C-alpha cells in the first residue's frame, strides 16, 4: 500500500469543465471520502484515478510512482488499483471464487488467497461456489471489495458502493467494508454523496464543489470548523444566525443572545454557525442556570417537532425577532408543539463574514 497524491487535475467533457484543478493527498493506509452532491465531478475524479479516463492536465502519483503526468498515462491494468463500482459489477458468468481470484495470476487462483480475502470481508467461505445473482446486495458489495483487495492493490477506489443498498444494510455493510479496508491497511478513496457515510467511515473527508475541493479535513474538523457557510450547511444540520461582533471582539450579539466566538473578529456584521445539538432547551418556568451570567436567556416557541426515537429535531421561533432555529434534543422528553422554552447555546460558535 502506498500514499496517493494528485495535483492540478483538470478534466472537461466537450468543452464543459468538470474538474478544475483538484489537489488531494491521501496518506498511506488511510481512507479518504470524496463528498459532494451528484454531478459535482466526483465519479469522474475516481475514473481518472483508476485510469479509465485521461485528465486534460495534472499529475497523479501512487507513492513514488507517477501514473499520470503530461507525458505519461499508465493504463488501468498496470496501475494496481482496486475498483469497487456502484452496483458491485460482479462478472455474471463467474462464481464468487472466480470473481474474487480474477485479478490473481493463474497459479495463485487455486491458493489460499480466496479464503483469506473472504475472511477479510467477513463472508463465509461456503459462498465461494455461489453465482452473483444468488447473493444479496450487501454480499455482492463485499464480494466486489474482496475481488478488488485480492491482488493486493496499491490503492482501493470505491464509487458510491453503498448507495444501492437499503438503509439498514447500508450502515452495516459500510462498517464491514471499512473494517476490511483497515485490516488490509489499504489506502482507499471512497466517493459518496452521503454526509453521515463520509463522516463516520473516513479518516479524511474532501468536500467537492463545482469541480474543486472546497475543504479537505478530518471529519471532526470538517464538522466543527468548515471553511465557509456552504460547506457548513452541506456537512450537517446548521442554523446561520445574523449577528454583530461586539466591541470586545470575542463575542457576537444575536437573536440567541450574546455568544462566545471561537476566534476573535473585528466588530461588524457576521453569520454565526450554530449546530442543532449546540442549542439547549430549558423549560421556561425554571430559571436558566447554565446561561452566561448576566445575560437573559432567549425565549422561543416550539413550532414543529420531528421525533426520531433516539432524538428529535425541534423547530423553534425565537421571540421577539421571529428568527427560526433548529435544536436537536434527546428523544427521552421532547417538548410539545406550542410550548414556550428558554434557549441556551452550548460551547463557542464559529463566525463567518456576513453574506
Amino acid at each position, binding site marked *: 500500500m502506498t500514499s496517493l497524491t494528485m495535483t492540478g487535475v483538470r478534466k472537461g467533457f466537450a468543452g464543459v469543465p468538470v474538474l478544475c484543478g483538484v489537489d488531494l493527498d491521501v496518506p498511506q493506509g488511510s481512507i479518504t471520502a470524496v463528498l459532494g452532491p451528484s454531478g459535482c465531478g466526483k465519479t469522474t475524479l475516481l*475514473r481518472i484515478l*483508476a*485510469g*479509465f*479516463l*485521461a*485528465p*486534460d492536465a495534472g499529475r497523479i502519483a501512487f507513492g513514488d510512482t507517477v501514473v499520470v503526468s503530461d507525458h505519461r*498515462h499508465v*493504463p*488501468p*491494468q*498496470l*496501475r*494496481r*488499483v*482496486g*475498483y469497487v*463500482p456502484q452496483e458491485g*459489477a460482479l*462478472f*455474471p*458468468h463467474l462464481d464468487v471464487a472466480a470473481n474474487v481470484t*480474477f*485479478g490473481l495470476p493463474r497459479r495463485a487462483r487455486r491458493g489460499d488467497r480466496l479464503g483469506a480475502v473472504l475472511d477479510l470481508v467477513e463472508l463465509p467461505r461456503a459462498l465461494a461456489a455461489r453465482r452473483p445473482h444468488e447473493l444479496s446486495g450487501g454480499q455482492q458489495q463485499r464480494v466486489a471489495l474482496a*475481488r*478488488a483487495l485480492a*491482488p493486493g492493490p496499491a490503492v482501493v*477506489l470505491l464509487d458510491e458502493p453503498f448507495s444501492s443498498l437499503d438503509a439498514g444494510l447500508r450502515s452495516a455493510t459500510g462498517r464491514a467494508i471499512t473494517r476490511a479496508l483497515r485490516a488490509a491497511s489499504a489506502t482507499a478513496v471512497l466517493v459518496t454523496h452521503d454526509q453521515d457515510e463520509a463522516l463516520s467511515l473516513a479518516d479524511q473527508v474532501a468536500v467537492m464543489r463545482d469541480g474543486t475541493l472546497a475543504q479537505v479535513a478530518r471529519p471532526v474538523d470538517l464538522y466543527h470548523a468548515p471553511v465557509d457557510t456552504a460547506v457548513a450547511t452541506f456537512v450537517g444540520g446548521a442554523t446561520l444566525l445574523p449577528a454583530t461582533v461586539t466591541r470586545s471582539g470575542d463575542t457576537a450579539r444575536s437573536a440567541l443572545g450574546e455568544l462566545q466566538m471561537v476566534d476573535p473578529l473585528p466588530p461588524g456584521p457576521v453569520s454565526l454557525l450554530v449546530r442543532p445539538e449546540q442549542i439547549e432547551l430549558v423549560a421556561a418556568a425554571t430559571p436558566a442556570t447554565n446561561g452566561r451570567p448576566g445575560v437573559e436567556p432567549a425565549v422561543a416557541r416550539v413550532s414543529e417537532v420531528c421525533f426520531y426515537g433516539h432524538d428529535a429535531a425541534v423547530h423553534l421561533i425565537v421571540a421577539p425577532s421571529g428568527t427560526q432555529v433548529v435544536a436537536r434534543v434527546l428523544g427521552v422528553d421532547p417538548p410539545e408543539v406550542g410550548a414556550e422554552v428558554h434557549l441556551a447555546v452550548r460551547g463557542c460558535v464559529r463566525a463567518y463574514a456576513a453574506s
Partner: protein
Amino acid sequence: MSSAGRRRRHASGVPVLLAGIAVAALALVPLGFVVVYTVAIGPSEGWELLVRPRIGELVANTTKLVAGGIALCLVVGTGCAFLVERTDLPMRRVWYALLAAPLAIPAFVNGFGWISLTHRVEGFAGALMIVTLSYFPLVYLPVAASLRQLDPALEEAAFALGRSPLRTVLTVVLPQLRPAALGGSLLVGLHLLAEFGALQMLRFPTFTTAIYDQYRSSFNGPAANMIASVLVLFCLVLLLGELRLRGSRRYARVGAGAARSAAQHQLGRWRVPALLGVCGLAVLALGVPAYSLVRWLVVGSSTEFPITELALATATSVSLAGVAAVVTTLLALPVAWLAVRRGGVVGTALERGTYLANALPGIVVALAFVTVAVRYVQPVYQTHVLLVAAYAVLFLPRAVVSVRAALEQAPPLLEDVAGSLGSGPLATARRVTLPLILPGVGAGAALVFLAVVTELTATLLLSPLGTSTLATEFWSRTSSVAYGAAAPYALLMIVLSVPATLLLGRQLRKGLGP
C-alpha cells in the same frame, strides 16, 4: 490532448465505424436500387407501366390481404394470449406452446398442406385463412409476454376504484397491450407483403407473385421493377408505423417481472367454447398440414424416397445456411457494437438502416441483387456469393437484434473492472466480453441459419443453375403437382426449423421482435 487513453479509444473506433457504414450500405442496396430505378425511369413511362387494369387488381388484392390478415391475426393472437395468460383454461402450458408452434411451419408448406387436400382453399378466403393460421403467433407471442409483465397493481387499483372486471380489461389492460399488439401486427403486415410461396400455391395474385411471374415469364425488367417500387411503398408505410411505435415503446427493465401473478378470470360457462376454439385453431394450423404431409408421405402414389437427392439438397441447404449464418453474424457485430457502445445519431442510424432491409420482401431484395450484379458486378452473378449476400441483407436484423441484446449483457463497466484487476484488452475480451456475448451471438447465428433453410423467394431467383436446396426442390415438385415427392422436403424443412422457432419465440416473448 494526446493521452494514451484517448488514442486507444479512437484507434479502435474508426475501423468499427467504417465496417458499420459498409454493412449498412450493403443493407441499403435493395432500397437504393428501387429508388434509383424509379427516378431513372421517369414519371411518364412509370405511369404507363403502372396504370393498367392488372395493377389495379394487384393493389386491391394486396390491400385486402394485408388489412384482413392483420385484423384476423390481431383478433386471434390477442384472444389466444388472453385465454392462455389470464383465464383458467385447462392445460394452459400445453396450449401456450402449441399456439406458438405454427411458426415452425413455413407458410408455403402450410399452403401446400391445404391445397394438396382440397382446391377449395384457392382464392381470397382460403389465402386469408392460411396466412392467418401461419402468422397469428407473431401477435400472440408478444401480447402474451406483455400480459405476463403487466403489473397486477394497476388492475387492482382499477378494481379498488370501483371498475368492473370487464371495464378494467377494456380501459386498463387493453391500452397497455397496444404497443405489443400493434408491433406484432405490423410484423404480420410486412410478412404478408413479402409472402410469395403460399399465395402462389393458392393462386391469389399479389405484388410479390406478380413480380415473380413477370421476372420468370419474360424477364420483363421495367415492369417487374416498377411493381417492386409500389410494393416498397406499401412496406415503407407499414415501416413508418413500426418505427414510430418502436420509438415510443418502453422496454421492460431486467428483472422487472411482476412478482405476483395477475388475477385469473373464471371462464365459467365459456370454458367449453373457449377450449373448442383453441382446439379448432390448433387443428387448422397444425393438424391439417401435419395430416396432409403424413398422408402424402405414406399413401401418396408419387411418394418415393430418393435418398441421394434428399441428402444432396439437405447438404446444400445446410452448408448455404451455415455460411450465411457466419457471414451475417460477422456483419451484425460492428452494427450492434456501434448501436450499443457508441449510440447517438450515427449508431442508431446505422442500426435502423439494417432494419430497413428487413421490411423489404425477399423478392425485391433478390430482384435488386440480380439487376445490380448483372449491370455492375457481372462475375458474381449466378454464384453462391450473391445468394449469401442476399441472405445476409434479408436476415441481418435477426442477427443484429440478438448480438445487440448480447452486448447489452456485457456493460463496459465490467471491462473497466477487469482492466483495474490487471487484465489487458485482449485478456479482457477473452475472459469477460466473449463469454458474456457468445450465447446471444450463437442464438443470432442459429436464427439466421434456420431462416435461410426455409427461405424460398430469394433462393428461387438467385440460386445458381444446378444448385438445389430443400426449398427449391420442394417448390419444383409442388409446381408439377408431385405432392408425394414434395412431402419429404417439407418435413425436413420443418424439422430443421423447430429449434429456430423456439429461439424466435423466446425473443418475441422478450418483446424484441425479429
